[in-house]
Every structure is written in structure tokens, then in C-alpha cells.
């Protein structure tokens, strides 16, 4: 399972790094930084929650 973040689409809502702080972090402006594109075991649900909670649909998740 692999995450990608479209930084141009991120508007800094911060939903992803609140829900999944091991996968995303915040930069100094409050925008998202993808820290772990390869979702570790046990974080699948959090990865999906973060992806689907983004109001800008800036995150994609490759289930493969």
C-alpha cells in the first residue's frame, strides 16, 4: 500500500497529519508533508481515513 500527496492541491486543512501522524507531518505553514509513503503494517485503516478525509482530495492511495 503506497501513498502519494499532491502538494499543490494541499490547502493545509491538516486532517491527514491529525489522523495519521506516523504517515504525515505538518510543515511550518501547516501544509502536509508525506513522511512515510510506504504504509507500514497495521496503518492501513489510518492511511485510508487520512486519504478519504482530505477535503481537497490531495492524497491518493495505491492499494497494491
Amino acid at each position, binding site marked *: 500500500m503506497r501513498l502519494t500527496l499532491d502538494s499543490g*492541491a494541499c*490547502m*493545509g*486543512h*491538516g*486532517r491527514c*497529519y*491529525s*489522523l495519521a501522524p506516523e504517515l504525515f507531518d*505538518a*510543515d*511550518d*505553514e*501547516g*501544509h502536509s508533508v508525506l513522511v512515510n509513503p510506504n504504509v507500514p503494517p497495521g496503518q492501513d485503516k489510518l492511511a*485510508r*481515513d487520512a*486519504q*478519504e*478525509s*482530505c*477535503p*481537497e*482530495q490531495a492524497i491518493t492511495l495505491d492499494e497494491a
Partner: protein
Amino acid sequence: MSDTAELTTGGDGERILDSQAAEGLGSDLASALAVAEPQGVYSGITACPILALPGDLFVIGAASSVDAVTRNGHVRGSGAVGNTGGAKRPLIPLDIDRPEHTKYRKLLDPIFAAKKIAPLETDIRALADELIDAFIDRGHADIYDEFCAILPSTIFLRVMGIPTSDLDYFLDFKNDLLRDFPGETAATREARIASAAERCYAYFNTILDERQTRGAPGDDLLGRLLTADVEGHQLTRENILDICYLLMIAGLDTVAASLSCILAWLARHPAERDRIVAHPEMWPDAIEELMRWETPVPAATRTPTVDVRIGEETVPAGTHVSVLWAAANLDPEKFKDPLTVDLTRRPNPHYSFAAGFHRCLGSHLARMELRAALDQFHTRIPNYRVPEGVELTYEAIPVRLARPLPLVWSA
């Protein structure tokens, strides 16, 4: 509300008074929404991609339409066309489009970033405790006036760097700029708003003058604005005033309104409240869900600066679009069982802090304040209710709020 009433519009977290949009929606609709559960009315609007009303006014409530307008990359607020809460110029950054918008957000976003505001949580909990101390032994209070209204305004003034002793002065500006007073004529109302706007500009000018004369800009928000370097330039005094004005009308009562809506909902749903009290780790998800359900800033004006195609309609560049976040938050295309309140709902990509590059600047501060204030309140007063025979009164527009909010508990 009267048919001259304003629809509050949000964006960058703030509100704009837009009589044109309100007239489009109609005063009957506004009163139908001023109830404990307006969701049935809002959800009816999600089925239609776009409503074209006479006078070149468009209303959108479907999530896909809201996405089309907010994500097109070329959009501003009302642009201070008409009555923008008495403002003399377009508000910064809401009323300006990219690319200029970006340089202001690059300045302001770091000030309101989640990590930056996190240390304020201790202050917020202490202030919440102080407020609660004043009424807890009484066993009853108007929680709107004694808690919801004071806490966020005080924090806002601290962030700005304005003496909290000026709180009442500020609440007077804000009420004069944003509230409706029953029985007032249009001319009196206009004069009241104009006078409050003048006092507001004069207030900020005096504070900024003092700091510049002293040569001590300060390390608070006002200080940051006075010393900001934006692409090699300092901000002009007008730039600073246009930012402060927006922050004031956006920051002073949106969190107060949100707190009142959430506490009122929890008072009306004691079993759900007891669940959170037993499991306070539920707060973050519960707050997101109640923000979706209540949508305290229910609507905003957005003005695309390019033509946008929505459904069968083309919205020409420069047209005001009334964006109903409260409707988009109930769109079944976006939310499973949207008319069910699920305090553990995930995912929850709601629109309550707007969307697109005008996303509420204060959203991180608002969320943290709500969590800290609600957690502190329920630690001290876990069990409360609306007094027997009292039906809560709600306002729908420009912000949704429950006021007064009389609650009772065992002292």
C-alpha cells in the same frame, strides 16, 4: 430575519455581509433554518447541481459543485462589492485572487499553523477553568454569554496582541458590524455599521501608531504584520488594516458560535455526551462530526474570476455564487448516511472550514480551542441539561448559534 438581512459568508474563516445573496435565498428560508435541526432543509439543496436565481445569483450546495468552484484555482470572496461588513476595501486575503493571495497566506499561514498555536492550549484550559469557576457553584448559567462568547474572543485578542481589557470594546464593534437589530430602518443600520467600521479602523490605527512611535512593534500578530517582509516589501498601513479587519470579523464569534452549537447538541443528546465523557479520546472525531452536522458558518460568497461550468450552467467570471457548506456537508455522494450523527465518523471530509485556497486561516486554532474548551467544560461539568420547559433558540445566518444557551446542573 427581514428581507434586508445579510447572509454571512465565510472564507479564510471570516464572514462577509452580502445582502444580495441573502435576498436570493429569501427571508423565509432563513427563518426555516433558525431551528435545532435545519438539516432537512439544507439536504434538499444537495440534489440540485446549481440554482440560478434572478439577478445573476447562483446558489450551490452539491459537494461536486462546491468542489468545482473552490478548486478551480481562480476565485475570491465577495471582493468587497457592496456591503462587506463596513469594510472600505477588499479584505485580505479573502477578497483577493491568486497569485497575490499566495503571498499573504505565506505570511499568515505560519502564524496560525497547528504546531505554532499548540502551546496556547494551556492558556485556553486555564481561561476555561477561570470562566467555569465563576458559575459552577450556581448550578445554572447562560453558557453562551458566560462561556462561549468570552473564551474565543479573549484568546483572539491575546493572539493579536490587543489588551484583553479592551474585550468589551471589541465585542461592541463586532456586534455593531455583524448583528441585526430588530426594528431598525435600513438607513439607521447603514449608519451604525459605517460608524462601527470607522471606530474599528481608528482603534487599529491608534495601536499601530503607538507601536511604531515607540519603535517596539512587538512579537504578537500585530508585531508580525508591522515587521513582515513580503517579497522584499513591508506591508502598507492599509494592507495591515485590511488583514486586521478580516481577522476581527472572522475570529471574534465563529468559535463562540461553534461552541454553542456543540454544547446545545450535547445537552439535547445526553447519552451521546455521556459516551464522550467516559471516553474523552473521542473528542477529535466527535468535534469534526458536530462541525459537519451543525456547520456554524453555513454559507459563503465565492466569486470565480474565470467562467466555471457547473451542471447545465456557466457561471460567468465575476458572478457571486452563494456556496452552502451546510448543504455540501449533507451530500450523500460524499458522506455515508449523511443525516445520521456518528460521533466516530471516519472519513469525514467536511466543508465547515471552507475549501480551496481560501480555507479558513484559523481552522487549526479553532479546532484546538474547541477541543480544549469542551474537554475542560466536561471534566468540570459532565452532566447538564436544558431547563425544563425551555426550548433553545437558534440563529441561522450569518453564523449558526444557540443563544441564549441556558443550562442547569447539580452544583
